[in-house]
């Protein structure tokens, strides 16, 4: 929600490119009211191994060497493509040249240039594929090609590979949390990542009114880093259902998002 709102607001006075780097579950398009892309490019950022059963001598070297448990011993040896990371270790250890590494189309990147007045570049990892971090890198490279003053990146949840690929090299990070024990704990976890990469940041408490006392605690803990707090408004759900961006809707959330935007603008 924050990323879509900021992209729209920044685009009112400058050139924006918006990136959906939550390649596992990309939703920025939907928040911006977009369901179709002008162009979609299938990409390959990973490889997978296969074992040729005619050449395999069943020595088990690959089974022992694979660090990802991707080699299954049933009748002979086979590779579980869901677990294969494409590292090529099995090929290196195979004495019979039975392993082949093949590039796989593991995702796609869609671009919508027309509808919003600014380009949206959105990535999608195909379910069951690996290489989400590399799709994020490719997506950001494609987004850089558009002239822009501000690039807005929507990252995935968590602190793993796609998140790290999303926050590296950013000038500023907005950490969105909610006043629940989970929200507060996870805020601490993402903070370690942001600090590791030495990225300046601000904090937004979403749905602050579902637990005002914990919200207060997070606000105090955030101190000067607090950018604002957003109330819970069930009308936000209606605006998602109608594919209407929150900044264009009449919700209690809208005015708070505007205040947060002003604060971020003055900091950057």
């Amino acid at each position, binding site marked *: 929600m924050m990323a879509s709102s900021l992209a729209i607001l920044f685009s009112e006075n400058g050139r924006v490119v918006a990136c959906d780097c939550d390649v*596992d579950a990309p939703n920025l398009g939907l928040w911006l009211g977009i369901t179709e892309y002008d162009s979609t490019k299938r990409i390959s950022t990973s490889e997978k191994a296969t074992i040729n059963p005619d050449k395999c001598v069943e020595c088990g070297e690959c089974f022992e060497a694979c660090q990802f448990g991707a080699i299954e011993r049933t009748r002979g040896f086979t590779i579980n493509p869901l677990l294969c990371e494409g590292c090529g270790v099995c090929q290196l250890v195979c004495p019979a040249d039975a392993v082949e590494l093949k590039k796989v189309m593991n995702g796609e990147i869609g671009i919508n240039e027309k509808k919003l007045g600014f380009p949206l570049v959105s990535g999608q990892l195909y*379910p069951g594929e690996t290489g989400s971090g590399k799709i994020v890198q490719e997506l950001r490279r494609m987004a850089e090609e558009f002239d822009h003053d501000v690039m807005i990146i929507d990252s995935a949840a968590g602190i793993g590979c796609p998140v*790290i690929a999303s926050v590296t090299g950013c000038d500023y990070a907005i950490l969105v949390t909610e006043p629940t024990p*989970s929200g507060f*704990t996870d805020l601490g976890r993402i903070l370690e*990542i942001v600090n*590791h990469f030495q990225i300046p940041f601000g904090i937004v408490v979403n749905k602050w009114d579902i637990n005002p006392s914990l919200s207060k605690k997070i606000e105090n803990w955030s101190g000067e880093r607090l950018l604002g707090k957003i109330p819970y408004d069930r009308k936000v759900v209606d605006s998602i259902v109608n*594919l209407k961006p929150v900044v264009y809707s009449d919700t209690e959330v809208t005015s708070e998002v505007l205040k947060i935007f002003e604060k971020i603008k003055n900091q950057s």
Partner: protein
Amino acid sequence: MIASTGGKGGTGKSTFAVLLVLKLSNEGKKVVLCDCDVECPNDYLLLNQEIVDPKPIYRKLPELDEAKCVKCGICSRVCKENAVFWVKEKPPMFFLDLCSGCGACWIVCPNDAIKPKEDLAGEFFVNQLNSNLWLVTGRSKPGISETGPIVGEVKRRAMELAKDINADYLIVDTSPGTHCNVIQALLNCEKAYVVTEPTPLGAHDSALILELIKKMQIPAEIVLNKSDVGDRKQVEEISSNFGVSITIEIPYSDELVRSYSEGKLEEMVDLI
């Protein structure tokens, strides 16, 4: 072994997993809950537990013995993660932030100058809540991007525990998304609950996770959280496209939101 998953963050995967284990354990079943969202584990908070006494989870990383290095650069050529940088006549430099621990470099090194070294990747915790309910929590070390193997290890520990105590159920709570850490969590599960919400976002992301679950050939059911808000039409379409029924509906309730944020979900078990 049953999974609670859902693609999208914040749909209620953990809430559902916790309600499910509370319900089963109240019925007298022996249950182990395994929190496989190792990047941001939350089940212990929802169950009002503290996690203490961490047990380490290691991964293997390369370590170079410069005295043995012949400066050939083969290690750099085989690394698919670009984690080994080499210039002629110099020993290689390792960027361990990028390393997946696959072992290609130490396998090809002609002079055994690279050896695998155990490195802390994360930790796991075991809580026994009562005579019927155990919780195994995995947590990755911040800064580690490859979290799939950590999930695999945490799950292995939970499966051992479930066997030791003769558990009736092992419930696995996955992280959001559809990549390696979710795949590891879903592996070998006999059933998956896909927790989603009636919005275009929920519909979109549940279709992605259902695609993965179909590939993995795991029987699935849809849990529709906040079932009375938004518009359920799209989720119903996806349910019929994938041939997966919506078997559980949890209506929106302020009470549930409050009990979640206060760690008192046991009061809400009747919702499922």
